[in-house]
């Protein structure tokens, strides 16, 4: 507003000065011209003033004192600058969920329902509403630790949001000075269009403690949900200043700071030389043109499980901080169980010591992210899985072997479809692996290798070598640690094997026998239940929450339903509808609704116990009344097709009650 006052004042002064001048000018033409100019100036100034009154300019970003801010520095220029010269790349990025990973929360960016909604979860009440373009929450103070009957009713402005693909989380400003935020204990599910308590968004045991501390965003989320985050804490006041180059994962998260690139390419001769030559533009990092390991590290800077070599370097402007194109492990240690082996002590002593410490002293912590054999089990850590794969050790395999961040102009897929998993064209099937394993290209060769019909889901490279053993954001994900099915690994770690993830109605012994006879994989020692009872039944009833949630997901997976048959699964899904873990109930309900005849079962996974029991009774009634073939003792059916309730109850009683926490 202030910047407009000076030109307005000058215009008005000029117009006023024109009045006495008019009499002194002899020429009629000149008088008319001067009068016209004065009128034009006054009218333009008036219009400008009116427009500013109607549409006040946005406050400067730094003026927002209640949240982290966007602040360009250290050579970062933002995606709006990149757009001018790279419209295609900008458009594809703009369509991605990377862009919307963090947004300033407004009525326009919020996916959740803020139209005066009243909610109650776990005894806490919430009222969500819009005020103009702002989002507000009134609620029982979720940080209150005193007597429940005295919990204060507080009001907070919601300032940032996280995510937009599967769900969206919200952060509210705290009344204390500084830019720290607190996580609203609610999560909005995009597909279901439904608010759920945040405890359901991760795999958390009932009443599990979750880190709702105000430093969560400014210390942790900022590293990967924004571009070039930086945090500073004032030593005297302890106020936190958090700023980012750009909210969301923007161009420079992968390409590095672009200031030098922008300045160099203002010269059109340089640009056209680059267009028509083979030279690489060294003023910017192009992940696709780096050596293979560096390429994957660009993705791995976020899609991995790491510790800093020197605390705090992830959020400073120090030259030690990783920037795209650097060697990632110079600044960080990527957690790999194998590094704890004494033979690796000399290779990277710091990594060796860290992994040894974590495995010996922080077992519970490490098992929140890894299976006991070191395979990653939570989503968003694909790089950690990939670098353990034999394909990666070949030296040419990168994330971009299968994924693309910028689909080509002639890519026939709508950007919305591409954005779902950002796969390159044709990389959704066996073509991905055939890039290197061309020997399996023919139908005969494929069938000989897989021992399945070539067109069947059993001949999908992904299904056997990248099974759904990773969990996060309320769904199963494919493991990015490419390996071969192993019943021995299932016995040792509890991780479902690829064979039984589809053949849920078969025993582990059945899978082990086939792997031995068809592939020469050694058969492990198996107990009587593993030899007699279907793997799906064992995992659903006796497994820990991590196994149960994956099994619930498999029971809604189309190939598994087609292969294992649908009808026998209902008692198991019904049992999982009443699971103590919110997330297990959610996934079980979703799978149940995919089975014919059960799509309309009324089930609210965060409903009351009575509502859940009603839903279970409804499933039991439908199952009892359905015509279905007997599927055998392996799935705990007696000869007449009825459930063997005695064994069912025994397996339930033997359930692994270990408290599982998978919080990506």
């Amino acid at each position: 507003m202030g910047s407009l006052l000076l030109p307005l004042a000058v215009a008005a002064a000029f117009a006023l000065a024109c009045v006495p001048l008019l009499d002194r000018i002899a020429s009629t033409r000149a008088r008319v011209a001067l009068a016209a100019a004065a009128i034009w100036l006054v009218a333009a100034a008036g219009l400008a003033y009116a427009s500013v009154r109607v549409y006040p300019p946005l406050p400067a970003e730094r003026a927002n004192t209640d949240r982290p801010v966007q602040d360009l520095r250290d050579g970062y220029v933002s995606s709006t600058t990149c757009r001018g010269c790279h419209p295609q790349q900008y458009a594809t990025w703009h369509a991605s969920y990377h862009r919307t990973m963090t947004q300033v929360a407004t009525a326009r960016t919020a996916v959740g329902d803020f139209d005066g909604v009243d909610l109650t979860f776990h005894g806490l009440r919430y009222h969500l509403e819009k005020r103009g373009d702002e989002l507000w929450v009134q609620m029982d103070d979720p940080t209150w630790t005193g007597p429940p009957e005295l919990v204060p009713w507080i009001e907070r402005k919601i300032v940032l949001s996280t995510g937009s693909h599967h769900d969206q989380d919200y952060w509210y400003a705290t009344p204390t000075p500084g830019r720290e935020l607190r996580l609203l204990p609610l999560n909005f599910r995009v597909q279901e269009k439904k608010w759920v308590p945040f405890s359901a968004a991760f795999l958390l045991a009932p009443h599990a403690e979750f880190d709702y501390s105000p430093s969560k965003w400014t210390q942790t989320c900022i590293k990967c949900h924004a571009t070039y985050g930086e945090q500073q804490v004032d030593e005297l006041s302890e106020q936190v200043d958090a700023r980012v180059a750009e909210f969301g994962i923007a161009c420079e998260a992968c390409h590095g700071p672009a200031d030098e690139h922008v300045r160099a390419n203002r010269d059109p001769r340089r640009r056209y030389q680059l267009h028509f030559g083979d030279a690489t533009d060294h003023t910017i990092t192009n992940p696709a043109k780096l050596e293979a390991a560096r390429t994957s590290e660009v993705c791995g800077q976020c899609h991995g499980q790491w510790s800093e070599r020197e605390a705090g370097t992830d959020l400073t402007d120090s030259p030690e901080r990783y920037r795209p194109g650097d060697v990632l492990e110079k600044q960080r240690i990527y957690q790999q169980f194998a590094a704890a082996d004494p033979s690796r002590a000399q290779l990277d002593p710091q990594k060796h010591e860290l992994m040894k410490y974590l495995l010996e002293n922080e077992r519970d912590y490490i098992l929140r992210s890894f299976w006991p054999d070191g395979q990653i089990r939570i989503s968003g850590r694909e790089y950690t899985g990939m670098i353990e794969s034999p394909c990666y050790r070949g030296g040419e395999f990168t994330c971009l072997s299968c994924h693309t961040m910028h689909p080509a102009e002639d890519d026939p897929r709508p950007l919305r479809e591409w954005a779902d998993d950002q796969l390159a064209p044709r990389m959704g099937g066996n073509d991905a692996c055939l890039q290197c394993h061309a020997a399996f290209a023919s139908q005969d060769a494929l069938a000989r290798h897989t021992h399945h019909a070539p067109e069947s889901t059993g001949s999908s490279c992904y299904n056997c070598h990248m099974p759904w053993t990773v969990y996060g954001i309320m769904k199963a994900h494919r493991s990015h640690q490419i390996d071969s099915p192993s019943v021995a690994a299932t016995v040792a770690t509890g991780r479902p094997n690829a064979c039984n993830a589809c053949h849920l109605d078969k025993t582990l012994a059945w899978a082990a026998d086939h792997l031995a006879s068809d592939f020469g994989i050694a058969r492990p020692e198996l107990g009587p239940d593993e030899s007699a009872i279907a793997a799906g039944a064992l995992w659903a009833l006796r497994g820990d929450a991590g196994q149960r949630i994956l099994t619930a997901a498999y029971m809604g997976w189309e190939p598994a339903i087609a292969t294992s048959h649908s009808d026998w699964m209902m008692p198991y899904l019904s049992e999982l509808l009443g699971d103590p873990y919110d997330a297990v109930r959610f996934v079980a309900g979703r799978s149940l609704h995919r089975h014919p005849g059960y799509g309309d079962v009324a089930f609210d996974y965060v409903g009351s116990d009575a509502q859940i029991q009603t839903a279970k009774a409804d499933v039991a009634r439908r199952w009892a009344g359905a015509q279905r073939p007997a599927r055998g003792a392996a799935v705990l059916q007696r000869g007449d097709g009825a459930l063997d309730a005695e064994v069912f109850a025994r397996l339930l009683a033997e359930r692994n009650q270990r408290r599982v926490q998978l919080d990506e």
Partner: protein
Amino acid sequence: MDPTTRAVIQRHVRFGWISLLAFVLLGVFLEAMHGFKVGWYLDAGEETRRLLLTLAHAHGVLLALVNLAFAATLATVPGLDARLMRIASPCLVGAGILLPAGFLLGGLVTYGGDPGLGVFLIPPAALLLIAGVAAVALAALRAGRD
């Protein structure tokens, strides 16, 4: 009116109307691409092409009208400096061809935010336009004084 001036007027009338027809048709073609949502023209990544083809249409139409205005000026304003008119005529025809052609060719093949090489026709075309307009303006000024 001398035969030379008449010939110049006829040349600019022909060029102006034919050029106007061509670039009005280009405008219809661009509208059609909007109508049928042609990705080659409308996709978010095609900003440069869309801008260049729109500029080709706009400049083509404008230059056609400028050539017609030049013909009308020659026909209605007496005493224009013949030497300046001999400069203006080829300059305006040249600009009328090169300026929209530069935008058109620059928009057919693009390199991200950069137009194709056809865009290099634009600076000389702009110089021709400036020279042509300046010559006509100067001639009109002198004719008014005479």
